[in-house]
């Protein structure tokens, strides 16, 4: 480290941890604003230390940036040498720093936004305790230096997600959505656990360093299996096909939760996992191909659904799914820096979109149906302009962030010879521009507001400032990668120095970028023609393609299929067992023993009739029995031993 002052790395984790514990323990006894202050300030302090750490690390030469990893040893979790040693170290390398910066930075802005947004809620304090808990778990996930601690963070963010989706616990739909998210995520957790078992069986360790150093010892087939099982976890957490159905339902949670957990950070954990485990995927071509294909398919699949949905947050949820599909595509084909780059820009513009939509929802007292909105641009100019910035960014319009990061992925797909994935991504880019501008027009322009609640304006500075900052970041965030000046790849170089492809994003493929841009503009024009210009085209399309529309409205009937394939049989089986097995077998056996005991009690109880002489006889017989037993035990062995 030389002359640099080393930042207190553990504090990055401990500030939000202390925040969550303090709010949980003392929140009920102090002013509610104190809880909000503690919750927000703790994340801010984490962010400050993370920035300090980032500056220190990125000033080092590249070979020392990686050496800076594995440096904070805090203790042993399991210490049974030579069988299993699991230590608790905080890993710091460029990849984890990128994620930490977004988690604490965007996390701080969203906490600040929540101060205003959640103000009317009766469980204000609980909210901040949960949010801090999430930040701790997410930081643990990205700072873990072995797969088991990663899984602890992984399950921790799942728990926080569950608690926050079900935050409005008096709404039945919210509780069901939380349960669904938890079940889907646990499927993923089991996948990672199986991968950990395989790694332990092959390498005798679960630490990144040891596992990655000894990959050459096992055949590629085994690595493929490890990669596939890890990816099962990534699929569940990042809402990729076929475990994607929980994410739209997760929009039942408060909007800041959707912004932080279900858009900016937690759902990208799968991307982080693949990027972190890149030495495995670099040597496991089948697993890597699966990652890329699932990502490409999800990008396209979710984008098509987004074109017909009517709930403002559900449209954004499907777009999140689609954008994470892009990231998965990138890390699957080996373009890790491109995936991380899109993660950063997506965190900016998707958090922005959710928070701008949150202002609209907040001011309409909870209305989320865009069919009832319209003409809001005049009534809420701030929400409109910021939402427009986010929409331009996600649609990939120059010079907004999405243009750079999405084109980086498509360009890499072409360079690394995945024309089909590149085509899927390009079509999805067209659809993205279309459905986002459809959302924008229906919300802010077409017609006029016809909801149940009169719009009001009470956006405090805590709500507007974070949105404004993110709007600026959504504009300039992409400038990290400019032609010939590629900050993103060079920042991440130390983490991907051993990757199977060089990570460099600075070479622009201008024909590709311009054609993608033109496609995005075509999507915008189509949205304009269909939703802004009054014409019969919409009705004609709706009737002409009504089966397609039904298919998309119901998200390809995944929920229905899962209901009949898994849910209904499970309930039927449970019903059968509760009706027959539970009563006759599980209940029957203990009941039989209870009956025996009751019978014996009845028989022996009859003896105790209150007759003094019976008790006397009992004593005499008892003493006699004890005596006989005593004599037998002390003398019989000797007697029996004789021939």
């Amino acid at each position, binding site marked *: 480290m030389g002359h640099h002052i080393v930042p207190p790395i553990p504090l990055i984790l401990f500030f939000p941890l202390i925040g969550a514990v303090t709010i949980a323990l003392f929140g009920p006894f102090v002013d509610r604003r104190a809880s909000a202050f503690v919750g927000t300030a703790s994340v801010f302090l984490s962010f400050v230390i993370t920035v300090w750490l980032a500056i220190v690390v990125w000033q080092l030469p590249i070979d020392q940036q990686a050496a800076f990893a594995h440096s904070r040893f805090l203790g042993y979790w399991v210490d049974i040498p030579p069988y299993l040693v699991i230590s608790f170290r905080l890993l710091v390398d460029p990849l984890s720093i990128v994620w930490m910066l977004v988690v604490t930075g965007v996390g701080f802005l969203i906490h600040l936004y929540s101060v205003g947004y959640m103000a009317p809620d009766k469980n204000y304090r609980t909210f901040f305790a949960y949010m801090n808990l999430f930040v701790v778990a997410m930081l643990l996930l990205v700072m873990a230096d072995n797969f088991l601690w990663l899984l602890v963070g992984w399950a921790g963010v799942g728990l926080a997600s569950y608690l926050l989706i079900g935050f409005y616990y008096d709404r039945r739909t919210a509780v069901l959505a939380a349960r669904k998210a938890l079940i889907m995520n646990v499927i993923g957790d089991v996948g990672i656990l199986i991968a950990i078992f395989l790694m332990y069986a092959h390498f005798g360790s679960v630490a990144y360093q040891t596992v990655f150093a000894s990959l050459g010892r096992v055949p590629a087939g085994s690595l493929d299996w490890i990669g596939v099982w890890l990816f099962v976890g990534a699929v569940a957490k990042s809402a990729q096909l076929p475990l994607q159905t929980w994410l739209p339902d997760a929009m039942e949670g408060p909007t800041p939760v959707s912004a932080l957990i279900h858009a900016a950070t937690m759902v990208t954990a799968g991307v982080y996992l693949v990027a972190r485990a890149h030495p495995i995927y670099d040597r496991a071509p089948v697993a890597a191909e699966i990652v890329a294909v699932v990502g490409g398919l999800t990008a396209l699949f979710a984008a098509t659904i987004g074109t017909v949905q009517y709930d403002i947050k559900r449209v954004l949820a499907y777009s999140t799914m689609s954008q994470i599909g892009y990231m998965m595509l990138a890390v699957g084909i080996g373009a890790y820096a491109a995936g991380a780059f899109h993660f950063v820009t997506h965190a900016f513009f998707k958090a922005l979109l959710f928070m701008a939509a949150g202002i609209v929802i907040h001011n309409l007292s909870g209305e989320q149906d865009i069919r009832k909105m319209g003409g809001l641009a005049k009534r809420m100019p701030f929400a409109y302009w910021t939402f427009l910035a986010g929409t331009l960014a996600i649609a990939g319009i120059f010079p907004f962030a999405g243009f750079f990061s999405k084109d980086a992925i498509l360009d890499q797909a072409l360079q690394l010879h995945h024309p089909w994935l590149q085509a899927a991504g390009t079509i999805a880019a067209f659809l993205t521009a279309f459905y986002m501008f459809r959302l924008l027009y229906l919300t802010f322009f077409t017609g006029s507001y016809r909801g149940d609640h009169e719009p009001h304006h009470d956006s405090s500075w805590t709500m507007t400032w974070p949105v404004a900052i993110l709007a600026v970041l959504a504009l300039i965030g992409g400038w990290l990668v400019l032609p010939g000046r590629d900050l993103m790849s060079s920042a991440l170089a130390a983490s991907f120095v051993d990757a199977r492809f060089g990570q460099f994003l600075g070479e622009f493929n201008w024909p590709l970028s311009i054609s993608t841009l033109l496609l995005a503009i075509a999507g915008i024009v189509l949205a304009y023609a269909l939703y802004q210009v009054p014409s019969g085209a919409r009705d004609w399309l709706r009737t002409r393609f009504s089966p397609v529309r039904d298919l998309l409205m119901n998200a390809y009937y995944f929920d229905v299929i899962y209901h009949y394939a898994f849910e209904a049989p499970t309930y039927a089986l449970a019903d059968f067992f509760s009706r027959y097995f539970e009563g006759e077998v599980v209940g029957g056996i203990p009941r039989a023993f209870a009956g025996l005991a009751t019978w014996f009690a009845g028989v022996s*109880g009859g003896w*105790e*009739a*209150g*007759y*003094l*002489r019976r008790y*006397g*006889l009992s004593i*005499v017989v008892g003493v006699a029995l004890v005596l006989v037993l005593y004599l037998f035990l002390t003398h019989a062995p000797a007697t029996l031993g004789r021939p």
Partner: protein
Amino acid sequence: MPHVPLAGYLALASALFVIGAIGFLVRRNPLTMLMSIELMWNAGNLAFAAFARSFEDMSGQIFVFIVITVAAAEAAIALAIVVMVFRHRADVDVDEISIMRG
């Protein structure tokens, strides 16, 4: 005086104890039952005294004194109960006094 062996004392003590136990079990008059208990106490006392003499150890004799004291206390309490029951019911058949059954 002819020397009586320890077994003789123990045989007598056993006989006294068995007579007492049988008396307790077969009689229904509480006064007779108390006398039977007294007989069992003293069977024990005789065994204690015989062992003490045989082993030339005084502790057995001290036990006898304690037992006599406890027996006296027991007799006093038991007689008080019998008197109370008699006043209450004008009848002292123990088989009739079964209201304390569990």
